[in-house]
Every structure is written in C-alpha cells, then in structure tokens.
C-alpha cells in the first residue's frame, strides 16, 4: 500500500498542471495505472481492493499455468493469476516493481476477489469519459487484448482500459480445465 501512495503523490504532481482544465469535468473516474509487458493499462479504482507485494503465493498443482496459486489475505484465501501469462506472454522474473493487485471481479454469478500479478503499478489518475474511446475490434482477440474494451488518451499517453470481469471468465476457466484434463488423460 505504501508504494502506491508514493506513486499517488507523483501522479498528483503531474496532474497539477492540468487541474484547472479538468475542474469542470466533474464526472471523471479514478483509474489505477499499471504496466504489463511494456504496455500501460488502466483499471477502475472501484474494482481494486488492495495493492500488495507479490509474495507468499502457494502454488496449486494441476491448474492452468496462468493461475499462480493462492495467498492468505488477512485470513481469506484469494486466488492469484499471472496477467502476463493470461495475456499470452512469457512470465517475467519477479522484480522489486512487481505488484499483486487484488481485484473484485464477476465470475459466473459470483463476485470474487482475484489477485493479479503485474509488472508494475504507476498510480491513480482521473480520466474523464471524453478521454475514453471504444476500442475497434481486431481480428484476433485471443490474448493480451481480450480484456481490453476501450482505450483512454490521457496526457498524451495511450492507456489500455482493462475490463476486470474479462480477465477471467467462467467459460475461459472451464475451457482451461477441460484442456488440462485432456492433456493429462492424453
């Protein structure tokens, strides 16, 4: 948490210049900015439960490779997913920037906590709806862009807006397990 608040202040400083311009855009949303494989993403802060260091993960065997295991979050068992792997990249070596962001996501009919391991977290920004564009559908949406539904142009930077619910869907999960079973049988 402390890391995030540090980032917070640095983001806050850079925001200072445009504060006046944004003052009238009252309906801005707060987004958490993070990066995965050299690309910057943004996810609604309301979905973020917590940002913590990515350690203390107990692996669970016989699960899809993008599932890293479980952590103990103050007595609760929370599953952890590797965003890099989920997006089809090679898993990165854990660095001092690596973070675990606990998100609230819909899975089937349930709302669950899901830990997402990311390369780095940069802070929180205010994005107004006018800065967000729906992303044109691409031909092959299999991997890293599967969960990205729109793009935000914020301070001359492109941010891929992550729809947290699409990070892990029931269908995708069921398919993964099915693959796994067949692989084990085969």
């Amino acid at each position: 948490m402390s890391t995030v608040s540090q980032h917070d202040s640095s983001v806050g400083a850079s925001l200072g210049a445009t504060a006046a311009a944004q003052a009238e855009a009252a309906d801005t949303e707060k987004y958490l900015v993070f990066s995965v494989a050299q690309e910057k993403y943004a996810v609604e802060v309301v979905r973020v439960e917590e940002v913590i260091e990515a350690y203390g993960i107990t692996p669970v065997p016989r699960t899809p490779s993008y599932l890293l295991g479980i952590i103990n979050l103050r007595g609760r068992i929370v599953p952890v997913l590797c965003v890099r792997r989920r997006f089809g990249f090679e898993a990165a070596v854990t660095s001092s920037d690596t973070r675990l962001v606990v998100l609230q996501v819909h899975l089937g009919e349930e709302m669950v906590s899901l830990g997402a391991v990311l390369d780095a977290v940069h802070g929180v920004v205010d994005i107004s709806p006018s800065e967000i564009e729906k992303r044109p559908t691409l031909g092959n949406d299999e991997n890293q862009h599967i969960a990205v539904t729109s793009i935000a142009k914020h301070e001359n930077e492109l941010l891929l807006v992550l729809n947290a619910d699409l990070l892990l869907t029931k269908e995708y999960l069921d398919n993964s397990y099915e693959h796994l079973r067949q692989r084990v049988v085969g």
Partner: protein
Amino acid sequence: MNELGSPLDTFREEARELLEQLEQHLMQLEEDPTDHDSIDGAFRALHTIKGSGNMFDLDDLVGFTHIVEAVFVRVRDGKLPVSKDLIDLSLQARDHISSLLNETETGAADNETDERSQLLSKAFEAYLGDEAQSVSGEVFETHDSATANHSQHESEGEFTYRIEFTPASDSFLTGANPLLILNELAELGSILKIGYCEAIPDLKEIEPEHCYLRWVILLTTDQGENAVRDVFIFVEGSAEIKIDVIAEADPLMGESGYKRLGEILVDRGEIDPKDLEAAVSSKSYIGEVLVKKGFVSEEQINSALQEQNYVRDIRENRRTVETSTTIKVKVEKLDELVNLVGEFVTMHAGIAMVAERKNDQDFRAAAEQMEGLIRQVRDLSIELHMVPVEILFSGYRRLVRDLSEDLSKQVQLKLEGTETELDKNVIDSLKDPLLHIIRNSIDHGIESPELRKKKGKSPTGTLRLSAYYSGASVVIQVVDDGAGMDVERIRQKGIERGVIDTSDRYSEQDILQLIFAPGFSTNEQATSVSGRGVGMDVVRRNIEAIGGSIRIETAKDVGTTLSIRIPLTLAIVDGLLSRIGDSLYLINLSYIVECLDLQDVRKGGNGGDMIDFRGEIVPFLDLRSYFGVEGDRSEHPQLVVVAIEEKKIGLVVDDLLDKYQSVIKSLGKVYEQVEGISGAIILGDGKPALMLDIDRLVKVTRDEVKK
C-alpha cells in the same frame, strides 16, 4: 476488625450490607412468596438494623425500621401473607431506610424525609391493623422456632446435609453394617462419602472385628431431615451421628461459593477457632498451615476440601437448572465465534510448531496447556453451532410443490430425522447440492401419474428426505420411488465416452459413480428443470469439499436412493502435515490408516504400481508426479496409507511433519475444478497450505489401476 472506624461507622457499613440482603430477600420473595429462608432473612436484617441502631440513639431510623420489622414479624409468624403490594412497599421502605442512614452521616434531617417516614409508616401500620384481633388465634398457631425451622427442612427444595457418622467400634459384631447405611443414604439423593482411616491402628494391633472407620457424608436430597435420620434408626443408640444442613435451597445463598476451608473445619469441630485464627493470619495456604502446625490432619483437610467442592458443584448445578433458559443469538455472531475459534486453533497450531522448533521446555508445556483449553472452547463453540436439519429440509417443501406442478407430477414430500443436528456451515453447504438432487429426482426419477398407474404404482410419488447419525458422520438420504436409473444406459454412455471399456470388471456402483463425472449426461433431451445433468459433478464436488461422500443405490421401477455422508462438523480438521517438494499439504487424520517409510514397503504389481501393505495388495500414488512437482526427491520418501470405506491406497510424500489442527477454507470458484485438493488452511507463519482431497485421490488411484 479493630482497625475500623467508630462503632457508628461500623454500624452504617453493617446496615448497608443488611439493606442489600434485605433487597435480595425481597426479590426472592417476589418469586416465591412462601420462601421461609427469605422471610427469616428479611426479618433478621430489619431486626439487626433496629436493634443496633438503637444503641446509637438513631431514633428516626430505629422508629421507622421498627414498624417495618413488626410487619415482618407477622409475616414470619404466618399471620400475614407476602403480597406483591407488600414487597413493593418494603422495597420503598428499604430505600427509605437507606436515606435515613445517609442522614445519620450528613446530619441533615429534612422535612421531606420526615414526611416520607410518616407516609410509609402509615402504609405499614395498615398491615398491623388487625394485630389485636389475631391475638386470640395465636395460641393455636404458636410454633417454637426449632420446629418451624425443622418443618422448613421437611418442605420443598433440596438441602445438603453434612452427616458425621462414627459407627460404634463393635458395630460389625451387632450386625449393623455401616456400608448398608451408606448405600441407603445414596438412595436418597446425590452423595459424597469421605471415609476417615485415621483411627486404624498399626496392623498388629488391629482387631479384625472392630470398626475403625468414620465417615463424613455429604448428601443432597429433597427428602426431609427426618428421612435422613430414619436411615440411622438402627444404629442410633450406639453410633455417633451428627446431621447439619450445610446448604439450603435458597439460590441466592449460593451466589458466593461456599464456606471457607477453615469454617468447615470449625463447623465440624475439627479445629479450635483460635488455632484457625492463628493460621489465617499467616500468608500461606490455610490448609498447609493447619497441617503443618498439627491442628488437623491432612485427611481432615482433604475431607473439608471435598465438602467445599461438593457444595459448590451442587450449587452450581442448581443454578444451571434454574437459569437454563434459552437465549437468542444472531447467527452471524455464532459464525464469527466459530470462525474466531477456528483461527484460534490455527494460530495455536502455529505456536505449537514454533514451540517444537525452539525446543524450549517451558514454552512447549505452555503451548500444550493452551491446547487443552482451546479444545474445550472449540468443542463448545461447535456445539453452539449445531442446528437441526429441519431448517434445511423444510426449505424444500415449496420447491417440491412448485416443481411437481410445473412437471405435472404428483409428489409427496416426507421428512424424517429432522431433529438430527449438523454444523450450520455444513447445512449451508448442503443447500445447493440437495436442491440439485431433489430436482433430478422429481424430473428424472418420479414418473408421470399416468405412467405410474401403468406400472401399478400409486399415481402419487414419494420423495423422502431423511437424516440420521452414523458414527462421527451424519447420513442424509434423498429417496424416491420413481423409475430408477438405467445402469445399462449409463454403461453404454461411459463406453461411448471412453471413460470405461467394454469389460465387465466394473461394479454397478462404479458405473453409477460415472454420473458424477464432469460433463457426463444420460439425458439426451435436456429439460428446463435439471438442465443436462451437468449439475451432478458440481454436486459431488460440493459434497467432497466439505469432507463428505455420496453413494447411489437404484433399482429399476423401484426408485433411487442418494446417500450423502458428511462429517458432523467441518469447522476444524485434525490433519497431518506432509511435504511434497516445497509445498505443505494437510492430510485429514481420520482417513489415515498408517504411515510407513517407503523403503520398508515391498512393491509389486504391473510396473511396480502396487504395494504390499500387511499382506494386502494396495495401489499407490506418487503425489510428486501426480502434482507435477519438480526438483529433487526426498531421500526417505514416506508412504501414507489412507482408506475411504475400506478402499485403501498409499500416498507417497517427501516428508511427514506434524499433526496440525486447522479450519478448512474453501479454495473458491477459481479452483473449484482442481483434482486432488479439497481446500486450504493457513499455517502458523501465515502462508496457505493445501488440503488433500483423499476421497478423490482414492478414486483416481483405483480407477487408474483398473485401466
């Protein structure tokens, strides 16, 4: 005592205590207006306040108290019944005496109090109004106080008597066997016998026909003192018998424990009060001092201690009985309690591990003591958390009614064993699986009324939900009298899917278990109600997640019975921690048959996939390869033999660590489909570890062998 202030200060303090007692007696009388002890107590409190107050010329106080006392004399003598009004008035009087008492301190007598005194006095005098008339009747009603007391002991309520019984030394010769008397006493109520052997002489001096024993007997009985005395009727002349009431029925008396050790000894005349006083003044334990100084024997001390405990217990029980009412507690609070206790247990397991590692004797002893305590708290909280399955069962009435209407079927729901209790968490976890099973039964099991008639059955089908205890488990059954399952069709389906081969080595139960396989369906035509049978794998999974198992029995056109066996509680599991690679896994102790060094076990079978376990050929599973763990194998792998319903397998792990008690937490939806893991625990260092799904592993291993 002598360091107190002036006698007047002492009096005030004493009077305040007496007013407290008065209030308690009045409250007791409100409940039981005939309680003699309380009437006596109320009277005595007033009497002492008046009598002592008189010595200090406290006229206002004495004058007022006198009138109240006079009324209680009438009550005590049975001339005036205790009424609600009288108690109200007496409570007011109590408060007024208290203010009068305060005035003796402040010295401020004000008019208001005077007026109040007069007002209340008048009210009390009204109760004395017919004093003169009742005098003529007094002659007939006179009791001497001893018999009045006596009749009290004869009356309702339990008393505890201390009976000191010293049989005559020749009582064996006269045929009066003291043991028979003791037995007879035991029939009157609950009894504590303390035998004294101190009079037994040296062996060579013993006369075999002499009785050297004496007893102190504590008897709690609702029989009167006369009934107790009657027991001794034949030995009365020769034996020494002393009977005292040491604990009364009055529950208020019991609030402050029992007499002190010294008092008991004095009561029994075993010690001189002066010696006691001397002993009390020293700081050590009174019992020790008394024995050391030779005032009493250790035997006497022990006996007095037993009396102390006995009376305490009796009073404790009495209070429990009297206050044994139910209170309502919010379920959330109970949940929280059970959760916290679970965390407590988990944390203690962590502490015990640290204690073990540090190898500190004191630390370990403390951790062990704590364990005992935690176990008690745990058991109690689990008990609090049990609810009857009725709550679960009756929730399905509506479902059954609506469903049968939707499907144009006639179904009668019968509930059995609804009083069977289960952990509320278990009940919650059963809600969905049972719903699914019931849906299936009505949808696929019970036939339409027309079809049933054709089969010669009653047009109304019966669905029975029943629950019963079976060892440390509860079995819940869903029984329908429907069409039954078509085993042959399930077999065909299994063969089609390549799950089983065409050989005939599968038992009916093996084949029936196929319906719990993921995605296995026998119904080509999905209905809106039960879907396509996808539910059954989830049902099994949910039940296994709470440590349960499920069995099917079916007969064509007779019906289907689904039996779910679940542990009484799933709050906490006793397990054995084992290591596989870098991870720790918990194995539920209740499934473990034995742990062996793998080196000591003879392997056999095709490709060495079987072991010889005490003459039995048992398949085994190498968890390292099953879980795909990389890295070096342990030099001394361990074999844990587990069994589910007599079906044994061996599990190979790298190392066995400690026993570990923990709350089992669900892995959640993301890991719902994992094979071989049924939940997670949190270790002492805060890291999660996984719980092995023994039921699943047994099945997988044995299926593997069949192939």
